[in-house]
């Protein structure tokens, strides 16, 4: 196939093909829904999903659910970021701490976080605390291990230069190690954020009064597949926005590494 130079240049924009991919799925979805070959109950049309979504939004339910879910994620994940940074740096820079904690963390990491939900409910009831804690324990160890790995790969010359200029141990951690690993830390936070977002939905499916996951489980009870689709898309969109925000932070704060 021959393309004109102008068209080819426009197609080369990094977003063009991505948008094209999404549009293709939307069109296919519309065609299948319109053909009537699949029961409307199983596959609502895009327009139907949009209508269900806007109905929820107009009633203020969508916003309340989104705020509830985002609040839980922010709470649990902020805690996870806050704890994993010093913990990961300590493990990456101190052999004793690393040997002490690495097997333990390696073990806990393989325990699926959702399996902790029954325990958390027994300990802390059905309120916000068990959901926040679930996100915290479900992401803490991934963040910690990724930060630890980043610390281990700080070039020796950078550390030794600081030592030969009179740097003390703590100064080297704060002024050499931390800025050097910053891009990898932000990236680790971005990647593991997806897990936090998964966990909040799981927690809400089990027990919650509001939240995006809770609404999906209610919609299932009333066979409202259009609402389920609408909420799934909202969840995806919020995740995408969060991902882009982390990328923006990385680009703003670590210009040297890009």
């Amino acid at each position, binding site marked *: 196939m021959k393309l004109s130079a102008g068209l080819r240049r426009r197609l080369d924009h990094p977003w063009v093909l991505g948008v094209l991919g999404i549009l293709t799925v939307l069109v296919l979805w519309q065609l299948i829904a319109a053909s009537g070959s699949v029961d409307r109950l199983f596959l609502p049309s895009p327009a139907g999903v949009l209508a269900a979504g806007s109905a929820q939004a107009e009633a203020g339910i969508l916003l309340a659910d989104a705020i509830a879910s985002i609040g839980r994620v922010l709470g649990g994940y902020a805690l996870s970021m806050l704890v994993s940074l010093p913990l990961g740096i300590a493990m990456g820079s101190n052999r004793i701490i690393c040997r002490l904690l690495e097997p333990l963390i390696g073990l806990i990491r393989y325990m699926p976080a959702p399996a902790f939900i029954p325990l958390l409910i027994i300990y802390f009831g059905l309120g916000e605390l068990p959901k926040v804690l679930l996100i915290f324990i479900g992401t803490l160890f991934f963040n910690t291990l990724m930060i630890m790995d980043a610390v281990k790969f700080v*070039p020796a*010359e*950078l550390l*030794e*230069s*600081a*030592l*030969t*200029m*009179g*740097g*003390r141990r703590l*100064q080297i951690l704060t*002024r*050499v190690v931390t*800025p*050097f690993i*910053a891009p990898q830390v932000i990236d680790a936070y971005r990647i593991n954020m997806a897990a936090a977002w998964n966990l909040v939905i799981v927690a809400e499916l089990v027990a919650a009064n509001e939240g995006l996951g809770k609404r999906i489980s209610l919609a299932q009870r009333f066979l409202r597949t259009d609402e389920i689709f609408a909420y799934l898309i909202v969840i995806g969109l919020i995740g995408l926005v969060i991902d882009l925000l982390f990328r923006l932070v990385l680009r703003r704060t*670590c210009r*040297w*590494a890009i």
Partner: protein
Amino acid sequence: MHLSLTAVCKTFGQGRAAKQVLDTISFEINSGEFVALVGSSGSGKSTVMRLIAGLDRPTSGTILMDGRPITGPGHDRGMVFQKYSLYPWLTAADNVAFGMTLQGLPAREVRERTGYFLEVVGLQDAAGRLPRELSGGMQQRVAIARALAADPKVMLLDEPFGALDLQIRESMQEFLYQLWNRTGLTALLITHDLEEALLMAQRVHIMAPHPGRIVRTVETELDRSDLGALRVDRRFLEVREDLARCLRGLSQEAVTPLPPV
């Protein structure tokens, strides 16, 4: 400033895996001297430098700095590494200022000295640039300025120009010699390049490998008013050839010839 190494030995590993890398190394450096250690890879010359910097401890023997044993790294022994070791997130100026801020110097003094040392290495115009925006030669000049700004009594230069291509290396050698001549710093240069060592150092120690030891010491009395001319000076070339033969003889012990095909 007086730095002395007496019968320094270094063994890595223990038991059967032990490998001796340095065997009774002894030499001295006095204030204002430029001394070079020359040897092939495996001669342990970088290990000597790390011991002096305090980044490693000798297995036996003593290293004294102004009469006191070295117990760890300190800013009195500045170091320039072969690999570019600038902090990639800091501008050239912030890299130069780094050691001074670690030591807690007042901000005004840091600013003044940063400007001064950037000027010394001729990079005042590059102050605001990141390391990746500088050429290899410029990066090493910033690294030298950074080490100087931390106020060392002796500069340890570990193959500082080893990663540069030839033409830049030659101009950097002239730059370093002029710097030494002008500022009166004390320097220990580690290199495998004989010409580089002879050009700049008043005393050159030749090291043999496996285990690393000093086999020959040459005091060079050369007219260094024009390094470009010195490179092709007949007496310079004679000394260089003599030492090159010595080095070749040493490395032949280490290399086993390939079996005939």
